[in-house]
Protein backbone atom coordinates (compact mmCIF):
# COMPACT_ATOMS: atom_id res chain seq x y z
CA UNK A 1 0.00 0.00 0.00
CA UNK A 2 2.82 2.34 1.00
CA UNK A 3 4.70 1.51 -2.23
CA UNK A 4 1.57 2.21 -4.25
CA UNK A 5 1.10 5.59 -2.54
CA UNK A 6 4.75 6.53 -3.14
CA UNK A 7 4.44 5.53 -6.79
CA UNK A 8 1.22 7.57 -7.12
CA UNK A 9 2.87 10.57 -5.45
CA UNK A 10 5.89 10.33 -7.69
CA UNK A 11 3.83 10.05 -10.85
CA UNK A 12 1.63 12.99 -9.89
CA UNK A 13 4.48 15.23 -8.76
CA UNK A 14 5.38 18.03 -11.16
CA UNK A 15 9.12 17.92 -11.73
CA UNK A 16 10.86 21.25 -11.35
CA UNK A 17 12.89 22.56 -14.29
CA UNK A 18 16.65 23.00 -14.10
CA UNK A 19 17.96 26.47 -13.26
CA UNK A 20 20.85 28.62 -14.35
CA UNK A 21 20.98 27.45 -17.97
CA UNK A 22 23.99 28.90 -19.80
CA UNK A 23 24.90 28.48 -23.46
CA UNK A 24 28.49 29.23 -24.43
CA UNK A 25 30.65 28.43 -27.45
CA UNK A 26 33.47 26.08 -26.45
CA UNK A 27 36.99 27.54 -26.59
CA UNK A 28 39.21 26.59 -29.57
CA UNK A 29 36.11 25.63 -31.48
CA UNK A 30 35.28 25.68 -35.15
CA UNK A 31 31.93 27.38 -34.55
CA UNK A 32 29.58 24.46 -34.96
CA UNK A 33 29.20 23.57 -31.27
CA UNK A 34 27.59 25.18 -28.27
CA UNK A 35 28.14 24.03 -24.70
CA UNK A 36 25.08 23.97 -22.46
CA UNK A 37 25.25 23.71 -18.69
CA UNK A 38 22.56 23.94 -16.03
CA UNK A 39 22.01 23.43 -12.34
CA UNK A 40 20.13 20.33 -11.34
CA UNK A 41 16.72 20.69 -9.66
CA UNK A 42 16.32 19.36 -6.13
CA UNK A 43 14.26 16.36 -7.26
CA UNK A 44 16.91 15.22 -9.76
CA UNK A 45 16.99 11.45 -9.68
CA UNK A 46 13.64 11.38 -7.88
CA UNK A 47 10.67 12.90 -9.69
CA UNK A 48 13.04 14.02 -12.43
CA UNK A 49 14.20 10.97 -14.34
CA UNK A 50 16.24 12.85 -16.93
CA UNK A 51 16.48 15.82 -19.24
CA UNK A 52 15.80 16.73 -22.85
CA UNK A 53 17.43 19.53 -24.83
CA UNK A 54 15.35 21.62 -27.23
CA UNK A 55 16.72 24.06 -29.79
CA UNK A 56 15.10 26.79 -31.89
CA UNK A 57 16.29 29.48 -34.23
CA UNK A 58 13.88 31.96 -32.66
CA UNK A 59 12.99 32.59 -29.02
CA UNK A 60 9.31 31.84 -29.63
CA UNK A 61 10.08 28.61 -31.43
CA UNK A 62 9.32 26.26 -32.99
CA UNK A 63 11.69 24.12 -30.94
CA UNK A 64 13.13 20.81 -32.08
CA UNK A 65 14.35 17.98 -29.91
CA UNK A 66 18.13 17.64 -30.11
CA UNK A 67 18.73 15.33 -27.14
CA UNK A 68 16.25 13.06 -25.47
CA UNK A 69 16.44 11.20 -22.18
CA UNK A 70 19.74 12.49 -20.87
CA UNK A 71 20.02 10.56 -17.59
CA UNK A 72 19.39 12.15 -14.20
CA UNK A 73 22.51 13.87 -12.91
CA UNK A 74 23.45 15.22 -16.35
CA UNK A 75 24.12 18.92 -16.19
CA UNK A 76 26.13 19.57 -19.35
CA UNK A 77 25.57 18.94 -23.05
CA UNK A 78 27.45 19.84 -26.22
CA UNK A 79 25.18 20.55 -29.15
CA UNK A 80 26.38 20.43 -32.73
CA UNK A 81 24.12 23.05 -34.26
CA UNK A 82 24.68 21.89 -37.82
CA UNK A 83 26.40 18.78 -39.10
CA UNK A 84 27.19 20.24 -42.51
CA UNK A 85 27.13 24.05 -42.87
CA UNK A 86 27.18 23.65 -46.66
CA UNK A 87 23.69 22.14 -46.48
CA UNK A 88 22.36 23.63 -43.24
CA UNK A 89 23.99 27.09 -42.91
CA UNK A 90 25.19 28.24 -39.52
CA UNK A 91 23.06 31.00 -37.93
CA UNK A 92 24.11 33.81 -35.59
CA UNK A 93 21.96 32.72 -32.66
CA UNK A 94 20.27 29.59 -31.34
CA UNK A 95 17.76 29.36 -28.49
CA UNK A 96 17.71 26.52 -26.01
CA UNK A 97 15.39 25.12 -23.36
CA UNK A 98 16.00 22.20 -21.04
CA UNK A 99 13.05 20.00 -20.08
CA UNK A 100 12.87 17.98 -16.88
CA UNK A 101 11.45 14.57 -17.74
CA UNK A 102 9.15 13.17 -15.09
CA UNK A 103 9.47 9.70 -13.70
CA UNK A 104 6.72 7.39 -14.93
CA UNK A 105 5.38 9.83 -17.53
CA UNK A 106 3.73 8.33 -20.60
CA UNK A 107 6.01 8.36 -23.64
CA UNK A 108 5.44 10.53 -26.69
CA UNK A 109 3.39 8.81 -29.40
CA UNK A 110 4.16 10.25 -32.86
CA UNK A 111 1.44 10.52 -35.48
CA UNK A 112 3.46 8.31 -37.79
CA UNK A 113 5.63 5.84 -35.82
CA UNK A 114 7.92 5.32 -38.83
CA UNK A 115 8.74 9.02 -39.27
CA UNK A 116 10.48 10.82 -36.39
CA UNK A 117 9.12 14.32 -35.87
CA UNK A 118 11.51 16.24 -33.55
CA UNK A 119 9.35 19.37 -33.75
CA UNK A 120 6.13 17.62 -32.64
CA UNK A 121 8.12 15.76 -29.98
CA UNK A 122 9.52 19.04 -28.63
CA UNK A 123 6.10 20.68 -28.67
CA UNK A 124 4.64 17.76 -26.72
CA UNK A 125 7.46 17.98 -24.17
CA UNK A 126 6.92 21.71 -23.61
CA UNK A 127 3.22 21.15 -23.02
CA UNK A 128 3.76 18.12 -20.75
CA UNK A 129 6.81 18.95 -18.61
CA UNK A 130 8.48 21.85 -16.87
CA UNK A 131 11.17 23.57 -18.89
CA UNK A 132 13.67 26.37 -18.43
CA UNK A 133 13.09 29.77 -19.98
CA UNK A 134 14.69 30.15 -23.43
CA UNK A 135 18.38 31.07 -23.35
CA UNK A 136 20.27 32.30 -26.35
CA UNK A 137 23.66 31.07 -27.52
CA UNK A 138 25.93 32.50 -30.20
CA UNK A 139 28.38 30.17 -31.97
CA UNK A 140 31.88 31.56 -32.18
CA UNK A 141 34.57 30.18 -34.46
CA UNK A 142 38.30 30.55 -34.00
CA UNK A 143 40.82 30.34 -36.82
CA UNK A 144 43.76 28.88 -34.93
CA UNK A 145 43.66 26.22 -32.24
CA UNK A 146 45.79 27.87 -29.58
CA UNK A 147 45.97 24.93 -27.19
CA UNK A 148 49.56 24.40 -26.09
CA UNK A 149 49.72 20.82 -27.39
CA UNK A 150 48.49 21.79 -30.86
CA UNK A 151 50.82 24.79 -31.09
CA UNK A 152 53.70 22.52 -30.08
CA UNK A 153 52.74 19.98 -32.75
CA UNK A 154 52.48 22.74 -35.35
CA UNK A 155 55.94 23.99 -34.37
CA UNK A 156 57.37 20.46 -34.56
CA UNK A 157 55.99 19.91 -38.07
CA UNK A 158 57.34 23.30 -39.11
CA UNK A 159 60.77 22.44 -37.69
CA UNK A 160 60.83 19.05 -39.45
CA UNK A 161 59.88 20.72 -42.75
CA UNK A 162 62.50 23.43 -42.25
CA UNK A 163 65.22 20.91 -41.38
CA UNK A 164 64.32 18.83 -44.43
CA UNK A 165 64.68 21.78 -46.76
CA UNK A 166 67.91 22.82 -45.01
CA UNK A 167 69.53 19.38 -45.31
CA UNK A 168 68.24 18.92 -48.86
CA UNK A 169 69.99 22.18 -49.76
CA UNK A 170 73.22 21.05 -48.07
CA UNK A 171 73.02 17.70 -49.84
CA UNK A 172 72.59 19.49 -53.16
CA UNK A 173 75.78 21.40 -52.37
CA UNK A 174 77.57 18.06 -52.22
CA UNK A 175 77.66 17.25 -48.51
CA UNK A 176 77.93 13.51 -47.75
CA UNK A 177 75.04 12.16 -45.68
CA UNK A 178 75.54 8.95 -43.71
CA UNK A 179 72.67 6.49 -43.58
CA UNK A 180 72.92 3.22 -41.65
CA UNK A 181 72.69 -0.02 -43.57
CA UNK A 182 69.25 -1.62 -43.47
CA UNK A 183 69.59 -5.29 -44.59
CA UNK A 184 65.90 -5.57 -45.44
CA UNK A 185 66.15 -2.74 -47.97
CA UNK A 186 69.38 -4.07 -49.45
CA UNK A 187 67.57 -7.37 -49.90
CA UNK A 188 64.96 -5.73 -52.16
CA UNK A 189 67.54 -5.17 -54.90
CA UNK A 190 69.01 -8.64 -54.31
CA UNK A 191 65.52 -10.10 -54.58
CA UNK A 192 64.90 -8.37 -57.89
CA UNK A 193 68.26 -9.70 -59.14
CA UNK A 194 67.32 -13.20 -58.03
CA UNK A 195 64.00 -12.96 -59.88
CA UNK A 196 65.85 -11.88 -63.01
CA UNK A 197 68.26 -14.82 -62.79
CA UNK A 198 65.43 -17.28 -62.21
CA UNK A 199 63.30 -15.82 -64.99
CA UNK A 200 60.39 -15.44 -62.60
CA UNK A 201 58.44 -12.30 -61.70
CA UNK A 202 58.58 -10.04 -58.66
CA UNK A 203 55.28 -9.75 -56.80
CA UNK A 204 54.53 -6.42 -55.13
CA UNK A 205 51.62 -6.06 -52.72
CA UNK A 206 51.01 -2.47 -51.50
CA UNK A 207 48.80 -3.47 -48.56
CA UNK A 208 45.04 -3.38 -48.46
CA UNK A 209 44.31 0.11 -47.18
CA UNK A 210 43.04 3.15 -49.04
CA UNK A 211 45.33 5.48 -50.94
CA UNK A 212 45.13 8.23 -48.34
CA UNK A 213 46.77 6.00 -45.72
CA UNK A 214 50.36 7.12 -45.25
CA UNK A 215 51.64 3.53 -45.43
CA UNK A 216 50.01 3.11 -48.84
CA UNK A 217 51.53 6.41 -49.93
CA UNK A 218 54.96 5.22 -48.71
CA UNK A 219 54.37 1.96 -50.58
CA UNK A 220 53.62 3.81 -53.81
CA UNK A 221 56.86 5.77 -53.41
CA UNK A 222 58.78 2.51 -52.93
CA UNK A 223 57.00 1.00 -55.92
CA UNK A 224 58.43 3.81 -58.04
CA UNK A 225 61.97 2.76 -57.11
CA UNK A 226 61.20 -0.97 -57.35
CA UNK A 227 59.63 -0.70 -60.81
CA UNK A 228 62.63 1.30 -62.04
CA UNK A 229 65.03 -1.35 -60.75
CA UNK A 230 62.87 -4.16 -62.18
CA UNK A 231 62.89 -2.40 -65.56
CA UNK A 232 66.67 -1.95 -65.44
CA UNK A 233 67.11 -5.66 -64.70
CA UNK A 234 64.54 -6.43 -67.41
CA UNK A 235 62.58 -8.62 -65.01
CA UNK A 236 58.79 -8.91 -64.70
CA UNK A 237 56.77 -7.14 -62.04
CA UNK A 238 53.27 -8.05 -60.87
CA UNK A 239 51.45 -5.59 -58.62
CA UNK A 240 48.44 -6.97 -56.80
CA UNK A 241 46.01 -4.28 -55.58
CA UNK A 242 43.04 -4.43 -53.26
CA UNK A 243 41.72 -0.90 -53.82
CA UNK A 244 40.87 0.32 -57.35
CA UNK A 245 42.27 3.83 -56.87
CA UNK A 246 45.50 2.32 -55.55
CA UNK A 247 45.71 0.23 -58.74
CA UNK A 248 45.31 3.34 -60.87
CA UNK A 249 48.08 5.15 -58.99
CA UNK A 250 50.28 2.02 -58.97
CA UNK A 251 49.77 1.75 -62.72
CA UNK A 252 51.00 5.32 -63.25
CA UNK A 253 53.92 4.81 -60.86
CA UNK A 254 55.05 1.58 -62.57
CA UNK A 255 54.66 3.20 -65.99
CA UNK A 256 56.84 6.13 -64.83
CA UNK A 257 59.41 3.71 -63.36
CA UNK A 258 59.74 1.75 -66.62
CA UNK A 259 59.89 4.98 -68.59
CA UNK A 260 62.57 6.36 -66.30
CA UNK A 261 64.66 3.20 -66.66
CA UNK A 262 64.53 3.56 -70.44
CA UNK A 263 62.30 0.54 -71.04
CA UNK A 264 58.79 1.95 -71.59
CA UNK A 265 58.10 -0.89 -74.04
CA UNK A 266 58.53 -3.47 -71.23
CA UNK A 267 55.68 -1.98 -69.23
CA UNK A 268 52.54 -4.12 -69.33
CA UNK A 269 49.37 -2.62 -67.77
CA UNK A 270 47.96 -6.14 -67.27
CA UNK A 271 50.69 -6.74 -64.68
CA UNK A 272 49.23 -4.12 -62.35
CA UNK A 273 46.11 -5.92 -61.27
CA UNK A 274 43.01 -5.07 -59.32
CA UNK A 275 42.00 -8.28 -57.57
CA UNK A 276 39.10 -7.42 -55.26
CA UNK A 277 38.26 -4.79 -52.69
CA UNK A 278 37.15 -7.55 -50.31
CA UNK A 279 39.96 -8.50 -47.93
CA UNK A 280 39.85 -12.28 -48.24
CA UNK A 281 38.82 -12.36 -51.88
CA UNK A 282 41.93 -10.26 -52.49
CA UNK A 283 43.97 -12.66 -50.37
CA UNK A 284 42.67 -15.66 -52.32
CA UNK A 285 43.42 -13.93 -55.63
CA UNK A 286 46.95 -12.96 -54.58
CA UNK A 287 47.59 -16.48 -53.27
CA UNK A 288 46.48 -17.71 -56.68
CA UNK A 289 49.10 -15.46 -58.32
CA UNK A 290 51.78 -16.84 -55.97
CA UNK A 291 50.80 -20.45 -56.74
CA UNK A 292 50.37 -20.05 -60.49
CA UNK A 293 52.98 -17.50 -61.51
CA UNK A 294 55.52 -18.52 -58.85
CA UNK A 295 57.20 -15.17 -58.22
CA UNK A 296 60.81 -15.44 -57.09
CA UNK A 297 60.50 -12.41 -54.80
CA UNK A 298 57.49 -11.18 -52.88
CA UNK A 299 57.42 -7.63 -51.53
CA UNK A 300 54.68 -6.87 -49.01
CA UNK A 301 55.03 -3.18 -48.26
CA UNK A 302 52.14 -1.18 -46.86
CA UNK A 303 49.34 -1.63 -44.40
CA UNK A 304 48.23 -5.20 -43.80
CA UNK A 305 45.74 -6.86 -41.54
CA UNK A 306 44.71 -10.53 -41.09
CA UNK A 307 45.79 -11.45 -44.62
CA UNK A 308 49.45 -10.78 -43.83
CA UNK A 309 50.26 -14.28 -42.61
CA UNK A 310 48.13 -16.04 -45.23
CA UNK A 311 50.07 -14.25 -47.97
CA UNK A 312 53.46 -14.68 -46.33
CA UNK A 313 52.98 -18.39 -45.59
CA UNK A 314 51.83 -19.04 -49.14
CA UNK A 315 54.96 -17.26 -50.36
CA UNK A 316 57.07 -19.36 -48.00
CA UNK A 317 55.57 -22.57 -49.41
CA UNK A 318 56.37 -21.22 -52.88
CA UNK A 319 60.01 -20.71 -51.75
CA UNK A 320 59.99 -17.04 -52.71
CA UNK A 321 62.34 -14.56 -51.07
CA UNK A 322 60.01 -12.42 -49.02
CA UNK A 323 60.51 -8.88 -47.78
CA UNK A 324 57.76 -7.28 -45.78
CA UNK A 325 57.38 -3.84 -44.30
CA UNK A 326 54.57 -2.35 -42.30
CA UNK A 327 53.93 0.03 -39.44
CA UNK A 328 50.97 -2.10 -38.34
CA UNK A 329 52.32 -3.41 -35.03
CA UNK A 330 49.81 -6.28 -34.80
CA UNK A 331 50.97 -7.77 -38.12
CA UNK A 332 54.71 -7.40 -37.59
CA UNK A 333 55.12 -10.69 -35.65
CA UNK A 334 53.49 -12.59 -38.53
CA UNK A 335 55.80 -11.04 -41.08
CA UNK A 336 58.83 -11.60 -38.83
CA UNK A 337 57.87 -15.27 -38.51
CA UNK A 338 57.14 -15.92 -42.18
CA UNK A 339 59.35 -13.55 -44.20
CA UNK A 340 63.09 -13.40 -44.82
CA UNK A 341 63.32 -9.70 -44.01
CA UNK A 342 60.92 -7.40 -42.24
CA UNK A 343 61.05 -3.62 -42.23
CA UNK A 344 59.67 -2.48 -38.92
CA UNK A 345 57.66 0.72 -38.56
CA UNK A 346 59.76 3.72 -39.51
CA UNK A 347 62.02 1.64 -41.80
CA UNK A 348 59.11 1.36 -44.21
CA UNK A 349 59.10 5.14 -44.55
CA UNK A 350 62.86 5.24 -45.18
CA UNK A 351 62.88 2.67 -48.02
CA UNK A 352 62.18 5.08 -50.84
CA UNK A 353 64.96 7.46 -49.78
CA UNK A 354 67.37 4.58 -49.17
CA UNK A 355 66.71 2.91 -52.52
CA UNK A 356 66.87 6.13 -54.51
CA UNK A 357 70.33 7.10 -53.12
CA UNK A 358 69.15 10.63 -53.91
CA UNK A 359 71.09 12.90 -51.51
CA UNK A 360 68.08 15.19 -51.07
CA UNK A 361 65.90 12.29 -49.93
CA UNK A 362 68.57 10.69 -47.78
CA UNK A 363 69.21 14.04 -46.12
CA UNK A 364 65.52 14.31 -45.24
CA UNK A 365 65.92 11.23 -43.03
CA UNK A 366 68.40 13.21 -40.97
CA UNK A 367 65.74 15.83 -40.22
CA UNK A 368 63.33 13.23 -38.86
CA UNK A 369 66.18 11.71 -36.82
CA UNK A 370 66.66 15.04 -35.04
CA UNK A 371 63.00 15.10 -34.09
CA UNK A 372 63.34 11.52 -32.89
CA UNK A 373 66.17 12.57 -30.58
CA UNK A 374 64.02 15.45 -29.34
CA UNK A 375 61.09 13.11 -28.63
CA UNK A 376 63.31 10.61 -26.79
CA UNK A 377 64.81 13.40 -24.65
CA UNK A 378 61.29 14.71 -23.91
CA UNK A 379 60.15 11.19 -22.99
CA UNK A 380 63.00 10.69 -20.51
CA UNK A 381 62.74 14.22 -19.10
CA UNK A 382 58.94 14.03 -18.99
CA UNK A 383 59.05 10.75 -17.07
CA UNK A 384 61.47 12.26 -14.56
CA UNK A 385 59.57 15.55 -14.17
CA UNK A 386 56.20 13.85 -13.94
CA UNK A 387 57.55 11.56 -11.24
CA UNK A 388 58.63 14.67 -9.35
CA UNK A 389 55.16 16.20 -9.81
CA UNK A 390 55.90 18.67 -12.63
CA UNK A 391 53.45 18.09 -15.48
CA UNK A 392 54.60 20.82 -17.87
CA UNK A 393 56.08 18.42 -20.44
CA UNK A 394 53.02 16.18 -20.32
CA UNK A 395 50.84 19.22 -21.11
CA UNK A 396 53.14 20.05 -24.01
CA UNK A 397 52.31 16.68 -25.59
CA UNK A 398 48.60 16.66 -24.67
CA UNK A 399 46.48 17.54 -27.68
CA UNK A 400 42.98 17.39 -26.23
CA UNK A 401 40.19 17.83 -28.71
CA UNK A 402 40.94 19.20 -32.10
CA UNK A 403 37.98 21.56 -32.31
Amino acid sequence: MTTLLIHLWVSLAVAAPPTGLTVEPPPHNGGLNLDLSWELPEDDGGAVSGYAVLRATDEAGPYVLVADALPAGTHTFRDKVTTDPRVDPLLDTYWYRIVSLELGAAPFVPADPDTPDPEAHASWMLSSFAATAPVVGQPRAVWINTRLGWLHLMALIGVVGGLMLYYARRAQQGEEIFIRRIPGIDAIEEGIGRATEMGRPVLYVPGIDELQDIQTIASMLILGQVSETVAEYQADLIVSCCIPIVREVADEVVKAGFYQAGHPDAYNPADVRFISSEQFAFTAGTNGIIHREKPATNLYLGRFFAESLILAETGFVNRSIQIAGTAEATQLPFFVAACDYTLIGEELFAVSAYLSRDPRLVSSLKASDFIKIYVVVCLLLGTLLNTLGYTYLVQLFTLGEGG
Partner: protein
Amino acid sequence: MRRTAPLVVTFVVGVIMVGEYFIPHYRYRMITAELIEWGLVLAAAAFVLGLINLVQVNLPKVIRREQDWAYKLVMLIALVCTITAGALGGKDRLGDGQIYKWIFDFLFTPLNATMFSLLAFYIASAAFRAFRARNVDAALLLGAAVVVMIARVPIGESIPVIGDYLPKIMNWIMDVPNIAARRAIFIGAALGAVATGLRVILGIERSHLGSDG
Protein backbone atom coordinates in the same frame (compact mmCIF):
# COMPACT_ATOMS: atom_id res chain seq x y z
CA MET B 1 54.93 21.37 -66.74
CA ARG B 2 54.30 17.59 -66.65
CA ARG B 3 56.24 17.47 -63.40
CA THR B 4 55.53 20.91 -61.98
CA ALA B 5 51.74 20.72 -62.09
CA PRO B 6 51.48 17.56 -59.90
CA LEU B 7 54.02 19.02 -57.47
CA VAL B 8 52.07 22.28 -57.15
CA VAL B 9 48.74 20.45 -56.72
CA THR B 10 50.31 18.12 -54.12
CA PHE B 11 51.77 21.07 -52.21
CA VAL B 12 48.56 23.13 -52.19
CA VAL B 13 46.23 20.25 -51.32
CA GLY B 14 48.70 18.81 -48.80
CA VAL B 15 49.08 22.11 -46.95
CA ILE B 16 45.31 22.66 -46.91
CA MET B 17 44.67 19.18 -45.52
CA VAL B 18 47.40 19.45 -42.86
CA GLY B 19 45.96 22.84 -41.93
CA GLU B 20 42.70 21.15 -41.00
CA TYR B 21 44.31 19.88 -37.81
CA PHE B 22 45.26 23.36 -36.66
CA ILE B 23 42.49 25.54 -38.10
CA PRO B 24 39.19 24.54 -36.55
CA HIS B 25 37.08 27.27 -38.21
CA TYR B 26 34.03 25.78 -39.90
CA ARG B 27 34.57 27.74 -43.10
CA TYR B 28 37.99 26.13 -43.47
CA ARG B 29 36.48 22.72 -42.69
CA MET B 30 33.95 23.31 -45.47
CA ILE B 31 36.85 23.55 -47.93
CA THR B 32 38.54 20.39 -46.64
CA ALA B 33 35.21 18.52 -46.57
CA GLU B 34 34.75 19.46 -50.23
CA LEU B 35 38.24 18.20 -51.09
CA ILE B 36 37.60 14.94 -49.24
CA GLU B 37 34.37 14.51 -51.20
CA TRP B 38 36.26 15.00 -54.46
CA GLY B 39 38.62 12.25 -53.30
CA LEU B 40 35.69 9.96 -52.54
CA VAL B 41 34.17 10.59 -55.97
CA LEU B 42 37.52 9.82 -57.62
CA ALA B 43 37.87 6.63 -55.57
CA ALA B 44 34.35 5.55 -56.51
CA ALA B 45 35.03 6.24 -60.19
CA ALA B 46 38.17 4.11 -59.92
CA PHE B 47 35.94 1.09 -59.24
CA VAL B 48 34.82 1.23 -62.86
CA LEU B 49 38.47 1.27 -63.95
CA GLY B 50 39.17 -1.63 -61.57
CA LEU B 51 36.34 -3.58 -63.16
CA ILE B 52 37.73 -2.92 -66.63
CA ASN B 53 41.19 -4.04 -65.45
CA LEU B 54 39.73 -7.23 -63.99
CA VAL B 55 38.16 -8.11 -67.33
CA GLN B 56 41.23 -7.02 -69.33
CA VAL B 57 43.51 -9.24 -67.26
CA ASN B 58 41.32 -12.34 -67.04
CA LEU B 59 39.25 -12.53 -70.22
CA PRO B 60 42.22 -12.94 -72.62
CA LYS B 61 43.53 -15.78 -70.44
CA VAL B 62 40.19 -17.55 -70.71
CA ILE B 63 40.08 -17.03 -74.48
CA ARG B 64 43.65 -18.31 -74.88
CA ARG B 65 42.94 -21.24 -72.51
CA GLU B 66 45.97 -20.36 -70.37
CA GLN B 67 46.85 -22.20 -67.16
CA ASP B 68 43.89 -22.44 -64.75
CA TRP B 69 41.66 -20.59 -67.20
CA ALA B 70 38.60 -22.31 -65.73
CA TYR B 71 39.02 -20.47 -62.40
CA LYS B 72 39.14 -17.16 -64.23
CA LEU B 73 36.01 -18.12 -66.11
CA VAL B 74 34.25 -18.86 -62.82
CA MET B 75 35.41 -15.47 -61.53
CA LEU B 76 34.10 -13.65 -64.62
CA ILE B 77 30.76 -15.49 -64.47
CA ALA B 78 30.47 -14.66 -60.75
CA LEU B 79 31.29 -11.04 -61.55
CA VAL B 80 28.58 -10.77 -64.22
CA CYS B 81 26.01 -12.62 -62.07
CA THR B 82 26.64 -10.47 -59.00
CA ILE B 83 26.49 -7.19 -60.94
CA THR B 84 23.31 -8.31 -62.72
CA ALA B 85 21.67 -9.44 -59.46
CA GLY B 86 22.64 -6.18 -57.76
CA ALA B 87 21.38 -4.06 -60.65
CA LEU B 88 18.09 -5.95 -60.93
CA GLY B 89 17.57 -5.88 -57.16
CA GLY B 90 18.14 -2.13 -56.99
CA LYS B 91 17.67 -0.57 -53.58
CA ASP B 92 16.03 -3.73 -52.26
CA ARG B 93 18.89 -6.02 -53.28
CA LEU B 94 19.65 -6.84 -49.64
CA GLY B 95 16.01 -7.68 -48.85
CA ASP B 96 14.80 -11.18 -48.09
CA GLY B 97 14.44 -13.41 -51.11
CA GLN B 98 16.69 -11.32 -53.33
CA ILE B 99 19.29 -13.15 -55.42
CA TYR B 100 21.98 -10.63 -54.49
CA LYS B 101 21.39 -11.29 -50.79
CA TRP B 102 21.45 -15.03 -51.45
CA ILE B 103 24.83 -14.68 -53.20
CA PHE B 104 26.10 -12.62 -50.29
CA ASP B 105 24.79 -14.90 -47.54
CA PHE B 106 25.39 -18.32 -49.05
CA LEU B 107 28.39 -17.85 -51.33
CA PHE B 108 30.40 -14.80 -50.32
CA THR B 109 30.15 -15.10 -46.52
CA PRO B 110 31.11 -18.81 -46.30
CA LEU B 111 33.96 -18.32 -48.77
CA ASN B 112 35.21 -15.35 -46.75
CA ALA B 113 35.02 -17.35 -43.53
CA THR B 114 36.88 -20.21 -45.18
CA MET B 115 39.77 -17.96 -46.15
CA PHE B 116 39.88 -16.44 -42.68
CA SER B 117 39.83 -19.85 -41.00
CA LEU B 118 42.96 -20.83 -42.92
CA LEU B 119 44.76 -18.36 -40.72
CA ALA B 120 44.67 -20.79 -37.78
CA PHE B 121 46.73 -23.34 -39.70
CA TYR B 122 49.10 -20.73 -41.05
CA ILE B 123 49.67 -19.40 -37.52
CA ALA B 124 50.55 -22.93 -36.38
CA SER B 125 53.03 -23.50 -39.21
CA ALA B 126 54.63 -20.04 -38.86
CA ALA B 127 54.86 -20.40 -35.08
CA PHE B 128 56.53 -23.79 -35.47
CA ARG B 129 59.30 -22.22 -37.54
CA ALA B 130 59.58 -19.01 -35.50
CA PHE B 131 59.85 -20.78 -32.17
CA ARG B 132 62.92 -22.87 -32.98
CA ALA B 133 65.60 -21.80 -30.50
CA ARG B 134 68.41 -21.17 -32.99
CA ASN B 135 69.96 -18.28 -31.09
CA VAL B 136 69.48 -16.26 -27.91
CA ASP B 137 66.83 -13.96 -29.45
CA ALA B 138 64.81 -16.89 -30.78
CA ALA B 139 65.14 -18.69 -27.43
CA LEU B 140 63.79 -15.62 -25.61
CA LEU B 141 60.93 -15.46 -28.09
CA LEU B 142 60.21 -19.14 -27.53
CA GLY B 143 60.31 -18.77 -23.74
CA ALA B 144 57.97 -15.75 -23.74
CA ALA B 145 55.60 -17.44 -26.18
CA VAL B 146 55.42 -20.64 -24.14
CA VAL B 147 54.64 -18.71 -20.94
CA VAL B 148 51.95 -16.58 -22.61
CA MET B 149 50.38 -19.57 -24.39
CA ILE B 150 50.22 -21.76 -21.29
CA ALA B 151 48.97 -18.92 -19.10
CA ARG B 152 46.18 -18.13 -21.56
CA VAL B 153 44.65 -21.63 -21.46
CA PRO B 154 42.72 -22.94 -18.42
CA ILE B 155 45.11 -25.84 -17.92
CA GLY B 156 47.92 -23.35 -17.24
CA GLU B 157 46.51 -22.25 -13.91
CA SER B 158 46.11 -25.84 -12.73
CA ILE B 159 49.82 -26.63 -13.09
CA PRO B 160 51.19 -27.23 -9.59
CA VAL B 161 53.48 -24.62 -8.02
CA ILE B 162 53.93 -22.35 -11.09
CA GLY B 163 50.23 -22.26 -12.04
CA ASP B 164 49.55 -19.30 -9.72
CA TYR B 165 52.48 -17.31 -11.07
CA LEU B 166 51.94 -17.90 -14.79
CA PRO B 167 49.13 -15.31 -15.27
CA LYS B 168 51.23 -12.72 -13.40
CA ILE B 169 54.29 -13.43 -15.55
CA MET B 170 52.11 -13.33 -18.67
CA ASN B 171 50.61 -9.99 -17.66
CA TRP B 172 54.08 -8.60 -17.02
CA ILE B 173 55.31 -9.77 -20.44
CA MET B 174 52.26 -8.30 -22.18
CA ASP B 175 52.14 -5.04 -20.22
CA VAL B 176 55.82 -4.13 -19.86
CA PRO B 177 58.21 -5.36 -22.59
CA ASN B 178 55.44 -5.88 -25.15
CA ILE B 179 53.86 -2.46 -24.67
CA ALA B 180 57.26 -0.77 -24.51
CA ALA B 181 58.30 -2.28 -27.86
CA ARG B 182 54.96 -1.46 -29.46
CA ARG B 183 55.15 2.16 -28.31
CA ALA B 184 58.65 2.45 -29.70
CA ILE B 185 57.37 1.16 -33.03
CA PHE B 186 54.39 3.54 -32.93
CA ILE B 187 56.51 6.60 -32.15
CA GLY B 188 59.08 5.72 -34.81
CA ALA B 189 56.37 5.00 -37.37
CA ALA B 190 54.51 8.22 -36.56
CA LEU B 191 57.64 10.31 -37.05
CA GLY B 192 58.41 8.39 -40.24
CA ALA B 193 54.88 9.04 -41.47
CA VAL B 194 55.20 12.77 -40.75
CA ALA B 195 58.54 12.87 -42.55
CA THR B 196 57.16 10.98 -45.56
CA GLY B 197 54.13 13.25 -45.75
CA LEU B 198 56.30 16.36 -45.60
CA ARG B 199 58.74 14.97 -48.20
CA VAL B 200 55.84 14.53 -50.61
CA ILE B 201 54.17 17.85 -49.79
CA LEU B 202 57.42 19.81 -50.07
CA GLY B 203 58.27 18.10 -53.35
CA ILE B 204 61.51 16.55 -52.04
CA GLU B 205 60.12 13.07 -52.73
CA ARG B 206 59.31 12.57 -56.40
CA SER B 207 59.71 8.81 -56.78
CA HIS B 208 56.08 8.49 -57.81
CA LEU B 209 56.71 10.83 -60.73
CA GLY B 210 59.86 9.04 -61.86
CA SER B 211 63.10 9.50 -59.94
CA ASP B 212 64.74 12.03 -62.19
CA GLY B 213 62.72 14.90 -60.99
